[in-house]
């Protein structure tokens, strides 16, 4: 069916184009901001004008995580220029073929990819080396000009000095000669931390001025000459397909140029991600404007078929109920086993048990998914303007769809209006590439909010059953955790075991409880899943950190003291992140330090006024350690978040201001997901459609005050975009318990919280 439809629509496109007359076809469309594209001159990242103005390129997409400030800081530090003189430009994707013949960004595989809070951590040494190489090129230019040994030269704040002769030259004077020199090879000696002039000093976001002026910085703002607009009608049924379409009807709408089917079989498997990009079966409407495309799409006469098997009438209520029952009745896949939980004999010990549940949630980036892709008329080259976390993968996907060599695909990166893991996946790019390949015109494909919430790659939900065997004074002898989750990878042939993306077997309290058993079950769903800020961590931390609080309450212990007692002296533990990746280190001494710091800064242990309470939680995410104290007040039928205190050990902090912003944002984002957000499935379809039925945090629900304390450290920097989220939900639930005596064991909490608030409003006030 697809081939016929495609031919018909291309004929119709030509007809429409001929009829419209005004439509122009450009042979080789250029990116809208082609003139502003960054090209490095002194090495790949640096340009210096004759007047000394420094421009530094940023190769990782900015999505609010601050890399467009923090990464150039690393380069500027070793280049030795004042940061006030630096401006930043986004770099286009530059692909080269590696020894295995794969097309990768030139810094190495995945280096342009923003994910796993890795950009600063991974870039720390290579970007400083890049800055040092550029400085070396400038020094060599000066050495040649003055005919002195290069080692006799020093630099300070963008000026080269020859001490013996007293000669000096500003970088701008040497830039032209420096740019002609070959880039040095090999490692260059870098500054020691005590020599840092930029790293560790707070910087404001360099694009702040352009943002507040409303400049067109985002992917959704971009244009290409001769561009058409596409909106896709996607099958509302999970795993369902297009059954029939009245195409003639749609082509009759104003501005409509073509109808292009999106067949699921064309979904490519990008080699850089551990799973294929899920693509919904659908039909793209191509028109001369977004508004026209949208009007026509919403009037399409389409018959959809339901998904096969369980997907046909999937219900999340039923799936959760069945899973709870299965977890009780059948043993799961053993994920971790220390000691012997089943054989534990401790007659004087008590058992504490609890269940925790988390719903699926959607990413809901404020900028909905979009992509601009153009395929040249001869099909030999493609151009794309993308707001993506993974430009390497985007080029692979466009290549897979069009058959074009990735090195012939030109990708411009624009700012993302939020990413949070959603823009790591490439379904929007695949759709745009399919349409652009069919019509051979530049295509801007935009998702509506309804498209976004109905066809997100959802964060997995979960069920956890926890049992602890605890001595009277709170010593935990045994810990059994039975969990079931949706999985980011389940159902993909030849892929990782699903448990390994949703549970981290070396996370706390592993190694600090003698008898531990963790069993995994799959929570089934046909809904597509993806990475959502701190994947796997948010839901696991909720269960584990709430349960520790329950153990503390059951044994009349202070929850902070209990955790510190469990850690004891602490140690560096080997930590499996993903099986195919190098092991990391979880140092529980550093973990104890953030726990102590958060408690200290928050004034933990001071009595709270009636109706108020404090809750505590901590978590280790992507090698960063975060502990949080949440303080809430329940009054007048409302929950108010009075204050959140966070203590963070993320190694050396590059930009303290940006780092603080990440933790502050993570706290409010964590509140948003913990309180209101849920994606539910009924009758084989996602129920939520827009922000009227998908509850996002607003001003009134946000934390009134946030205090962030970073542990001073000379350890290498770790990620900060994600680790602030996981402790929030459990600290919040623990605070609500402290304030009200009611335990909330499900996220989102709002449905269980509402009756508590109503009851407390009605209750007469005690004097």
């Amino acid at each position, binding site marked *: 069916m697809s081939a016929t439809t495609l031919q018909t629509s291309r004929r119709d496109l030509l007809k429409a184009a001929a009829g419209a007359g005004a439509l122009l076809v450009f042979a080789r469309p250029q990116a809208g901001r082609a003139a502003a594209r960054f090209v490095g001159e002194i090495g790949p990242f640096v340009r210096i004008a004759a007047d000394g103005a420094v421009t530094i390129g940023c190769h990782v997409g900015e999505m609010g995580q601050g890399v467009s400030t923090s990464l150039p800081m690393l380069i500027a530090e070793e280049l030795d220029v004042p940061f006030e003189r630096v401006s930043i430009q986004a770099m286009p994707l530059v692909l080269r073929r590696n020894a295995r013949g794969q097309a990768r960004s030139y810094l190495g595989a995945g280096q342009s990819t923003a994910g796993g809070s890795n950009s600063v951590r991974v870039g720390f040494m290579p970007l400083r080396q890049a800055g040092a190489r550029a400085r070396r090129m400038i020094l060599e230019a000066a050495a040649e000009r003055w005919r002195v040994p290069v080692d006799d030269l020093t630099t300070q704040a963008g000026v080269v000095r020859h001490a013996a002769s007293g000669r000096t030259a500003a970088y701008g004077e040497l830039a032209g000669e420096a740019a002609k020199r070959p880039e040095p090879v090999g490692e260059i000696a870098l500054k020691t931390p005590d020599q840092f002039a930029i790293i560790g000093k707070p910087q404001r976001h360099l694009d702040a001025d352009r*943002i507040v*002026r*409303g400049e067109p910085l985002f992917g959704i703002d971009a244009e290409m000459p001769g561009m058409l607009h596409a909106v896709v009608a996607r099958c509302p049924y999970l795993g369902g397909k297009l059954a029939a379409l009245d195409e003639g009807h749609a082509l009759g709408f104003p501005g409509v140029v073509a109808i292009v089917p999106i067949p699921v079989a064309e979904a490519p498997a990008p080699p850089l991600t551990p799973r294929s990009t899920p693509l919904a079966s659908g039909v793209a409407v191509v028109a001369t404007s977004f508004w026209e495309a949208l009007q026509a799409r919403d009037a399409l006469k389409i018959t959809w078929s339901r998904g096969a098997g369980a997907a046909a009438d999937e219900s999340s209520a039923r799936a959760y109920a069945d899973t709870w029952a299965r977890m009780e009745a059948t043993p799961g896949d053993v994920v971790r086993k220390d000691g012997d939980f089943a054989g534990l004999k401790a007659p004087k010990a008590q058992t504490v048990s609890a269940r925790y549940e988390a719903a699926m949630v959607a990413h809901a980036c404020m*900028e909905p998914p979009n992509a601009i892709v153009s395929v040249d008329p001869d099909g030999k080259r493609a151009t794309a303007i993308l707001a993506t976390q993974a430009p390497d993968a985007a080029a692979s996907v466009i290549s897979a769809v069009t058959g074009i060599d990735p090195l012939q695909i030109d990708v411009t990166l624009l700012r993302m*209006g939020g990413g949070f893991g959603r823009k790591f996946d490439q379904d929007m790019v695949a759709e745009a590439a399919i349409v652009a390949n069919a019509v051979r015109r530049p295509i801007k494909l935009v998702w509506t909010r309804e498209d976004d919430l109905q066809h997100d790659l959802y964060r997995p939900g979960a069920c956890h059953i926890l049992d602890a065997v605890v001595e009277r004074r709170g010593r935990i002898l045994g810990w059994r955790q039975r969990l079931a989750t949706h999985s980011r990878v389940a159902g993909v042939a030849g892929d990782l075991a699903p448990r390994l993306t949703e549970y981290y077997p070396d996370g706390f309290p592993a190694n600090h409880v003698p008898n531990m058993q963790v069993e995994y079950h799959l929570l089934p769903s046909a809904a597509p899943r993806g990475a959502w800020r701190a994947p796997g961590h948010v839901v696991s931390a909720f269960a584990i950190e709430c349960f520790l609080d329950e153990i503390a309450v059951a044994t009349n212990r202070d929850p902070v003291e209990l955790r510190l007692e469990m850690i004891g002296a602490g140690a560096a533990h080997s930590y499996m992140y993903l099986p195919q990746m190098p092991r990391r280190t979880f140092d529980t001494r550093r973990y104890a330090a953030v726990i102590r710091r958060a408690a200290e800064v928050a004034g933990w242990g001071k009595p709270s006024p009636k109706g108020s309470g404090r809750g505590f939680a901590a978590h280790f995410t992507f090698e960063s350690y975060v502990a949080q104290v949440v303080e809430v007040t329940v009054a007048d039928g409302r929950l108010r978040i009075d204050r959140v205190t966070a203590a963070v050990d993320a190694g050396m902090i590059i930009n303290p201001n940006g780092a603080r912003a990440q933790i502050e944002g993570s706290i409010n984002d964590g509140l948003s997901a913990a309180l209101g957000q849920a994606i539910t499935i009924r009758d084989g379809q996602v129920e939520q459609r827009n922000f009227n039925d998908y509850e996002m945090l607003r*001003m009134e629900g946000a934390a009134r005050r946030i205090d962030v304390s970073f542990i001073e450290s000379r350890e290498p920097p770790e990620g900060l975009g994600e680790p602030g989220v996981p402790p929030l939900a459990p600290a919040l639930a623990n605070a609500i318990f402290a304030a009200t005596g009611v335990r909330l064991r499900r996220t989102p909490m709002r449905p269980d919280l509402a009756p508590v608030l109503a009851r407390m409003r009605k209750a007469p006030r005690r004097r």
Partner: protein
Amino acid sequence: MTFALRINGQTRHVDAPPDQPLLWVLRELLGLKGSKYGCGIGACGACTVHVDGQAVRACVTPVGAVGQASVTTIEGLAAKDVLHPVQQAWIEEDVAQCGYCQAGQIMAVVSLLAETPSPTDAEIDARLTNICRCGTYTRIRIAIRRAAELIRRRAA
């Protein structure tokens, strides 16, 4: 239909169906991309503009309903190089993370402070209902205070 719209102090002629939302007229026909699409149902405020000084959600405002009213978008807020105090406060407090919702937040706050120069927390909560997924709310609250102070100082 052809409309003569008064936008940022200029008269702009556009040809659009009267039910087309002002947002898409601004973005697609007039090239003013600062007002953002976030939901299309007036729920998130990313598209907030001023119509005769009142904050409205352009995604649910039909262009045919604008008439002779004066429309101000984020692009028209600064007087040439001089930023509006709210924009200035946003930079000084380094509010933006991804930045996508901030044009709408700023337009909503300008309107709030025009009517309520020293808003209480409760007034801020009630009037500022725009969504920010990055969670910049805590800095927004601080920036509102700073903006209110900057406005008072400029007036003095």
